C-alpha cells in the first residue's frame, strides 16, 4: 500500500486555502446591524400583521356565530366579508414560515392548500355526516384540510350556502372552524409578542441575529416562486383551453387575484416599508441599481395585476388575459432572480442542499 501513498498536498496548501477562506468570510463590505434590522422588521412588519390576523379572525368568528344564530342572506354576506378580510390578513403574513406559525402545524391548519386530491371535500362530507362534537378534541385529531380558511370557504361560498347552512350541521361546523381559526391566530400573535421581546431585541447578539435575519430574508425571497408556480402557472396550464381554474387558490370566493396582490403588497412592505430594510441594505452595499430594479418590479407587478379585470378563474381561460398573466409570471420570475441577486450581494445563503436533490 505504501507505494500508492504519495504526498501530493503539502500542509501549506491546506493552510493557504484556509487563509483564503478566512479572507472570503470578511470580504463583504460591512456587516449590517442585524439586531437592529431584525427588530425593526418584527416590530413594524410582522407584529402588526399578526395583530391584523388576530383581530380579523376574531371578527370572522363573531360574524359566523351571528350568522348561525339566524342564518339569512344579510348575515351570510357579513360572514363572507369577514372571511375575506381575515383571509387577506392571512395572505398578508403567509410568507412568514418560521416561528409560532410552524408549531403544531398551524400554517397548514389555517390553510391546507393546494389540495390537488380534493381531500378537503371528502373530509368535509365525512365531518358533516359524523355526530362527534366539533370541540378542541375534534380539531386535535381532524385532518388539517378541515381546520382552516379553505374549509370555511366551502361552507360560506357554496352556491347553495344559505340553504345548506339552514340544515344539518353545516352552521355548527362553520362556527367551530371560525372559532378555531381565531384561536390559532390569537395564539400565534401572542407567542410572537414574546418571541419579539426575547429573540428580536435590538440588543440580541450579532451571530444569533445574523441567523434570524436569514429566516426573515427567506420570508421575503422564497414565496415569489410559490406564488408564480402554484398560484398562477399551475392553474393557467399551457393555454386557455387547458387552463384549470379549480387549481386557483380561493377560487370559490373569487379571491384568487386578491390573494396574490395581498402577498405581493406584504412582500413589498417587507422589502422596503420599514425603518430598516433590505432596500436600504442594498443601497449601503453599493447595489442601489439592483435596489431600484426591485422596487420597480414590485410597482410594475402591482400595476399589471390591477389591470386584470375579471376574476382570475375567468381570466385564465380568456386569451387576452392569458397573455397578461404570462407577462406577470415572467415579471415574477424576474423579481425572484433580482431578490436572489440581492441575497448574493448581502452574503445571505438561503439554501444549498434544498436547491438541488440527490
Amino acid at each position, binding site marked *: *500500500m505504501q*507505494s*500508492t*501513498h*504519495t*504526498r*501530493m*498536498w503539502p*500542509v501549506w*496548501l*491546506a493552510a493557504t*486555502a*484556509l487563509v483564503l*477562506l*478566512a479572507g*472570503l*468570510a470578511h470580504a463583504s463590505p460591512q456587516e449590517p446591524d442585524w439586531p437592529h434590522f431584525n427588530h425593526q422588521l418584527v416590530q413594524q412588519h410582522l407584529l402588526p400583521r399578526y395583530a391584523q390576523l388576530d383581530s380579523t379572525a376574531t371578527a370572522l368568528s363573531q360574524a359566523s356565530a351571528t350568522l348561525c344564530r339566524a342564518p339569512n342572506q344579510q348575515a351570510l354576506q357579513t360572514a363572507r366579508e369577514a372571511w375575506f378580510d381575515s383571509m387577506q390578513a392571512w395572505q398578508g403574513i403567509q410568507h412568514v414560515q*418560521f416561528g409560532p406559525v*410552524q408549531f403544531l*402545524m398551524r400554517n*397548514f*391548519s389555517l390553510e*391546507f392548500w*393546494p*389540495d*390537488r*386530491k380534493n*381531500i378537503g371535500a371528502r373530509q368535509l362530507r365525512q365531518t358533516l355526516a359524523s355526530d362527534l362534537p366539533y370541540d378542541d378534541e375534534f380539531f386535535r385529531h381532524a*385532518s*388539517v384540510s378541515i381546520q382552516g380558511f379553505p374549509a370555511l370557504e366551502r361552507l360560506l361560498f357554496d352556491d347553495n350556502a344559505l340553504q345548506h347552512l339552514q340544515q344539518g350541521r353545516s352552521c355548527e361546523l362553520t362556527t367551530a372552524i371560525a372559532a378555531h381559526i381565531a384561536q390559532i391566530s390569537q395564539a400565534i400573535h401572542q407567542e410572537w409578542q414574546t418571541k419579539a421581546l426575547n429573540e428580536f431585541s435590538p440588543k440580541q447578539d450579532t451571530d444569533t441575529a445574523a*441567523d434570524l435575519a*436569514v*429566516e426573515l430574508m*427567506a420570508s421575503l425571497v422564497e414565496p415569489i416562486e410559490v406564488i408564480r408556480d402554484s398560484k398562477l402557472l399551475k392553474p393557467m396550464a399551457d393555454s386557455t383551453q387547458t387552463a384549470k381554474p379549480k387549481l386557483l387558490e380561493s377560487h370559490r370566493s373569487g379571491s384568487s387575484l386578491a390573494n396574490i396582490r395581498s402577498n405581493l403588497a406584504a412582500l413589498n412592505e417587507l422589502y422596503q416599508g420599514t425603518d430598516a430594510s433590505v432596500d436600504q441594505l442594498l443601497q449601503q452595499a453599493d447595489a442601489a441599481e439592483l435596489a431600484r430594479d426591485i422596487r420597480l418590479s414590485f410597482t410594475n407587478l402591482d400595476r399589471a395585476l390591477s389591470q386584470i379585470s375579471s376574476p382570475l378563474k375567468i381570466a385564465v381561460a380568456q386569451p387576452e388575459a392569458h397573455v397578461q398573466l404570462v407577462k406577470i409570471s415572467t415579471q415574477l420570475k424576474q423579481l425572484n432572480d433580482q431578490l436572489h441577486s440581492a441575497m448574493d450581494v448581502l452574503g445571505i*445563503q*438561503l*439554501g*444549498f*442542499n*434544498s*436547491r*438541488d*436533490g*440527490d
Partner: protein
Amino acid sequence: MFLVSNWGSTAVMETNRRRFMGLMAAGLMLPVTGVLANTGRSRPLLISAASHANRHWLLGTDDTGATRLHYPLPSRAHHVELHPRQPWVAVAARRPGDYIEVVDYQNGHQIARIPVDPGYLFNGHVVFSDDGRWLVSTEERASDSAGQVVIRDVEQSFAIAERYSTGGIGPHELLLHNNELIIANGGIHTHGREKLNLDSMEPSLAYLDFASGRLNEQVFMPAEHFQLSIRHMDLNPDGILAIAMQYQGDSGDHKPLVALHRRGQPLQLLAAPEAINRQMKQYCGSIRLDSSGQIAAVSSPRGHVVTFWDLPRARFLTMMHCRDGCGLSATGQPGEFLASSGLGHLYRMNPRTHERERLPLDPAAARLHWDHHMKLASV
C-alpha cells in the same frame, strides 16, 4: 498526484477478480477489531464534503469546532466513508461523478484519486468492506443508467476486482453487511442531472451476495408508489433496514417518505402525520440511526426539518427545525445526532429531550455549504 491507471485492462481485471474470489472463498472477511490503533488521546473528527463559490473541499472539524482537515476536491462531492483500519476517508463525487478521492484524514495527504471507468459514472456513494480490503461503489452505465456495484482492491491500487449488476437503474446508497451488499436502486434514468423516465420508474432494494454478486433478494416499490425513489438507508442491529425516499410525482401528493424492510418481508411504508409529511416536501436527503439503532433521523433539507422515527414501533416520533439541514451522524450517546446544513451550521439534536444545540465552528468552516452526508471519525 497518484492516478490509478491499471483499471482498464481485461487481463488485469481477471487477475483481480480471481484474487477477490479466492479471498472470499477463504473467508478472509475479518470483523473490525478497533477503529484506530493509536487512539490514546483520540478526539472526534466530523468529516463532510463542503463547497463555497464553486470551490469544493473535504472538511474535517473536531469537537471544539476547529478545522483539522481542509482538503481541496476537484468538484462537488457527496458521501464520505471511513476505512475501518486506516485513518482514511473515501469521498465520492456527486453524481454523475468522475472520481473517488481517498485521503488520509490525519495528515491531509492524498492516498488515491480513482477515476471512473469510461462509459460509467459514479453515483455518489461508497463503502469499505469490514476488513478494509475492498472499496465498493455504486455506479451506472452512462448510456442507460443500468446499475452496477464495483468492487476495488485497496491493496492493488484500487484496481477493479468485480462488477455486479444491481438489478435496477440509478443505484444510489449502498451498505455492506454480513457479506451481503444492500443497494438502493433509485429507479431514475438520468442524463447529466436530467431525469428521463419519471413515468416508468421501478425503484427497488437489492440484496446481493458480496462474493458472487448473486441477487439474494429484490424488493420492488409497490406499483401504486412507483415514483418513490429509494435513495438512502441505514441498517439497525436487529436487521431492520430504514429507508429514506424521494417522491418524483405530483407535488400535491401525500406519499410515505420513509420505509422499513426486513429480509424476506414486503416494504413497510411509513408516513408522518399529513401536515408534517407535507413539511418534508416529498424529499429526504439523508437517514442515519442513533448509536442504539432504535431511532432513525431523516433530514428533509427542502422542508428545513429533521424528522425522527421509532424503529421497533415503526412510527414517526417527532420533528425539529433545521434550515437546509442534510448531513446526519449519530454520536456515541443513544438518541443523539449531529446535523449539518448547507448554511454552515452544525447542531446536536436529541429527539427524546427535544434539545437542539448549535455547535461551535471556526468562522471559515461556518462559511461553507456542508454537503449531503457526513461521518464521525476520531483522530
